[in-house]
């Protein structure tokens, strides 16, 4: 059972977070921390594995940028068994992806302290670099100043990533330790949610959740949910038949970027990298002869539809696919919109719980009974 505690902020919220994380390392609660750190160039913030507490100076877990979904990194660090205790500082979509990866047996939480941080939204990496170049202040603290009200506007002239604009789960669930920011006056305090054991080790003082917290979270979620539904409706209106489906993906060049960026597209031997899709010259000529013409590169739509079929049940909506797409295909919106209905078939919410079995790994005898029977 996790309880709430208050962490007083002195000398800046990011500094307080760094000091707090430092206590985890120095107190021996973790052997290494995976945490977002500003690069020396200042134009990016990247996950960094830290064992030396003095290296925590440029920690920025709130930075509005997400170069990769870190669930992948935790997989790298734990899939074959973590040799030390890892503290992983993650956003909500990263936690959800990680839970899916654990269920897919691509990561393990056995030796992991999951540290979740409220997410205020992220920019595309290039936007983040551009914004930092043109800003004297700190983008994180700019956004944190708005977190109290639960209405977080992006910097002028920029938009959050599409996935973030429609993210209705900014607060991570199912973590060992949570740093709450939304609805708090982060110039004064941070809300910590932790187990009694961790709280005792960290000498945290119990606190009530401020009333403004839930209100602010609700307000943010409502705003994002409305944007999500608007985008879902738009895409559902647009893709209605074969010509519109072809139009939607007409800019796909099958570069596989979306697949590489996707945290839960995990297959070591992806079918699109096997001989199945490695066609001989004669095959292309045969197709072209039969149909008169074929679009090159081939297999773009089958790639997208297969990925949808393989992925839709586990899509956590982090939108890394869309960020990775060189041609700005709205893949995040499509995958989320399609995923929503597919997940509903099995009352499954990806990333919600380790207890719920992956839909494609299990079944119920009494479901979908009309399928397979004569009408």
């Amino acid at each position, binding site marked *: 059972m996790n309880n709430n505690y208050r962490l007083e902020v002195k000398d800046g919220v990011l500094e307080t977070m760094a000091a707090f994380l430092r206590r985890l390392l120095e107190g021996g609660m973790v052997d290494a921390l995976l945490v977002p750190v500003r690069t020396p160039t200042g134009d990016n913030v990247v996950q960094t594995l830290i064992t030396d507490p003095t290296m925590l100076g440029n920690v920025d877990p709130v930075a509005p940028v997400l170069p990769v979904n870190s669930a992948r990194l935790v997989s790298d660090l734990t899939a074959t068994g973590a040799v030390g205790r890892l503290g992983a500082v993650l956003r909500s979509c990263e936690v959800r992806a990680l839970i899916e990866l654990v269920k897919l047996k691509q990561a393990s939480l056995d030796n992991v302290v999951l540290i979740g941080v409220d997410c205020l939204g992220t920019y595309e990496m290039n936007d983040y670099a551009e914004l930092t170049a043109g800003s004297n202040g700190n983008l994180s603290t700019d956004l944190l100043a708005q977190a109290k009200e639960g209405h977080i506007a992006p910097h002028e002239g920029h938009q959050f990533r599409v996935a973030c604009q429609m993210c209705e789960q900014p607060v991570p669930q199912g973590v060992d330790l949570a740093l709450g920011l939304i609805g708090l006056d982060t110039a004064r305090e941070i809300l910590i949610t932790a187990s009694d054991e961790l709280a005792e080790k960290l000498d945290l003082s119990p606190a009530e959740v401020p009333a403004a917290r839930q209100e602010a979270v609700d307000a943010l979620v409502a705003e994002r949910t409305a944007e999500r539904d608007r985008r879902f409706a738009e895409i559902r209106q647009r893709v209605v038949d*074969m010509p519109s489906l072809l139009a939607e993906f007409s800019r796909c060049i099958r570069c596989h970027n979306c697949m590489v960026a996707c945290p839960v597209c995990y297959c070591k031997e992806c079918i699109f990298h096997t001989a199945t899709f490695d066609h001989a010259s004669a095959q292309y000529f045969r197709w072209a002869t039969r*149909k008169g013409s074929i679009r090159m590169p081939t297999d773009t739509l089958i790639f997208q539809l*297969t990925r949808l079929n393989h992925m*839709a049940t586990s899509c956590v909506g982090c939108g890394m696919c869309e960020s990775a797409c060189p041609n700005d295909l709205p893949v995040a919106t499509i995958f989320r919109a399609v995923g929503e209905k597919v997940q509903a078939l099995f009352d499954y919410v990806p990333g919600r719980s380790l207890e719920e079995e992956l839909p494609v790994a299990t079944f119920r005898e009494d479901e979908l009974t009309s*399928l397979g029977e004569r009408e």
Partner: protein
Amino acid sequence: MDDFEPRIIAFLCNWCTYAGADLAGTSRIQYPPNIHIIRLMCSGALDVTYVLKALLEGADGVLIGGCHPGDCHYQNGNYKARRRVGILKSILEQMGFDDDRVWLRWISASEGQYFADTVKEMVASLKEKGPNPLRELGGT
């Protein structure tokens, strides 16, 4: 469209539906020749990418045949296939593709007549629908 003859790709499990098709043959039960059968060891072994491939290449329909629920040679492959087909049909429907072109049917090794009837029904249904619209639209 009177002369339209639908092309159906069928993925049939070795133990039930394929044997059912075999029985239809050895029993000399007539059914339309529109169906092209691919034998699998189990309906649960079907990766939907092959169903998609058939549809995107212009097949007018895809039939997936497995053992009746509870009768799977591998305990529960057909239940897993049912989930995958459920997912596939939901995705096809959402992506603007007529998911009624994909049929899942449980047909046992003793149901030769039912197999033949299923093929007849499917051909009739697809004749009503007309050709796969992708044929007109060219390649994907």
